């Protein structure tokens, strides 16, 4: 059996089944959707066991060089609390684990978000408008006006009326222009993915049909 051709045919059939959704929901799409969801769920279970549980927890508790590290029982207990959701009587224990995840996530993100999304942006905006040529001055002006008016748009303590409203309108207009540019850029990237898929169908899959029918190749 030629495994390469089998792989190409499977890829092509699955691709065509998925694209059939563009017409309407149908049994082919349903089959591939369930296949995709089921396979990926199974894949991620194994992935998490192999790449998260074993190296990050089990091997820390029982190091390969021998011994036992008792501190790693704590995350194991939190994991059991999550599984305790199965039984209604013990389900509330999972709140401890969930609280830990949410609290640690929020705390850790607070510092990095504040650093990258606030301080670094402010630092990058404090510069001279008078440097460079006319175009450079214009670009700098758009940047500073865009940042300040954008911040005014996201200022929630004041109604968008009067001067605040007009400044916020400038901010949202600049944001929309930026979104438009981003939209076009991303669509180009998506089209290249589509082209890649069509290339697979036309250049890899189609030529195998005459070969299978014994018409050459």
């Amino acid at each position, binding site marked *: 059996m030629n495994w390469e051709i089998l792989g190409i045919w499977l890829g092509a059939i699955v691709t065509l089944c998925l694209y059939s959704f563009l017409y309407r929901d149908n049994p082919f*799409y349903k089959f591939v959707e369930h296949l995709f*969801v089921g396979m990926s769920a199974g894949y991620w279970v194994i992935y998490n066991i192999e790449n998260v549980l074993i190296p990050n927890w089990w091997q820390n508790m029982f190091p390969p060089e021998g011994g036992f590290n008792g501190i790693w029982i704590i995350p194991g207990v939190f994991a059991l609390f999550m599984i305790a959701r199965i039984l209604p009587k013990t389900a509330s224990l999972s709140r401890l684990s969930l609280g830990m995840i949410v609290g640690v996530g929020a705390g850790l993100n607070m510092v990095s978000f504040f650093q990258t999304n606030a301080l670094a942006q402010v*630092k990058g905006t404090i510069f*001279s408008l008078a440097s460079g040529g006319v175009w450079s001055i214009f670009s700098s002006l758009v940047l500073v006006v865009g940042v300040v008016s954008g*911040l005014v748009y996201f200022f929630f303590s004041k109604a968008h009326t009067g001067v605040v409203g007009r400044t916020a309108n400038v901010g949202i207009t600049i944001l929309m222009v930026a*979104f438009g540019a981003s939209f076009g850029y991303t669509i180009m990237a998506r089209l290249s993915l589509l082209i890649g898929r069509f290339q697979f169908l036309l250049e890899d899959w189609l030529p195998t049909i005459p070969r299978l029918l014994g018409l050459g190749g």
Partner: protein
Amino acid sequence: MKNLSAFMIFLLLSAAGTALADNADPPESVVTEAAEELEVISAVDLEASDTPEDAGGSVNLTWQMETVGSDPDSLGVIRSGPEGEELITTLPEGTVMYIDQTVDNGTEYSYWIVSYSGGYVQASSEVAAAIPSAQWIYRGRIGMLIILSLMAGVIIYFIESGKKGKELFIREIAGLAAVDDAVGRATEMGKPVLYIPGIMDMDDIQTIASMVILGRVARKTAEYGSSLLVPTCRSVVMSVAQEVVKEGYIQVGRPDAYNKENIQYLTDDQFGYAAGVDGIMVREKPAAIFLLGTFYAESLILAETGRSVGAIQIAGTAMPSQIPFFVAACDYTLIGEELFAASAYLSREPKLLGSLKGQDAAKLFFMILIVIGVVSATIGDFWSPLKSVAEFLRRLVTVN
């Protein structure tokens, strides 16, 4: 005696003459051999020190290379510690620093650098020793500590004000007023509400914000008697969503209407999840779809499918690259921070409102900072004293 003296002088002069003759005119082969025998240069001034302001387990090594002699092929870092003497790394010639991150805190380690040439150790530096240790304070982030403490102080002030009954004004956020309408529409049409909390886990701040809004949507669906579907991409998000929805149903006195099976885990895979949610959309035909949380490339796939089934769609994300798709395909879009403000706006809880007011205060501070900074830097080009003001402000917001 006189003859002996004359003989000694003759011998001395003969020896000096031979030496002078050798120095003055050496054979060519002798010169070549001398150049080949130049000594391989060694590392000097080796210093070993504990890496400052870190969590320990690290030693910094710095050294210089001698200037006279032939270059080695490579350098070796030798460490002597409790495990004995070992070569811990080989570095390219010309390297003058190395950080050893395989040490234990509180143990003394000795280091020396050897120069390799032709596969053999040709020279060695002197020995330097250090004891790695952990430090409690990282001074590079003291600025951030101060700013965050001030922000926390302002937030606590607003929270306390809210608790004491002071009205905390928040402007209307377009799209949020439509939440109730969307749920009402679904009830009238007898169709479910679909809530998609993004594809990230519970450690993501957008997912956390999404869960707060889910609580509000759950209360409304329980109140109106609509069905609420929440497919999730992460198992932990599913558990949290179940808790949040259950809480919402209990709050409006409809715990019997809560159906755990409506909050499902599909798969961790991004596009597997997108395919699954698309299937739910076309089969269940929800009248209202909420896409609130962190989204990546699947955003347009979901939003377009939602649009094709005729649902009213309210989306919100802080992912700049995905907002354009939601703006194009959804009826209402919460842009960036509006997603975080939405939870406060909807819940009207003093804690969330106080937090939002505190963030507004920080934004106002930064706006003033930017305006003063830009004006100072621009005028500073012509009048130098103001330049230092801009530099000071830049330093103020610099965090290592």
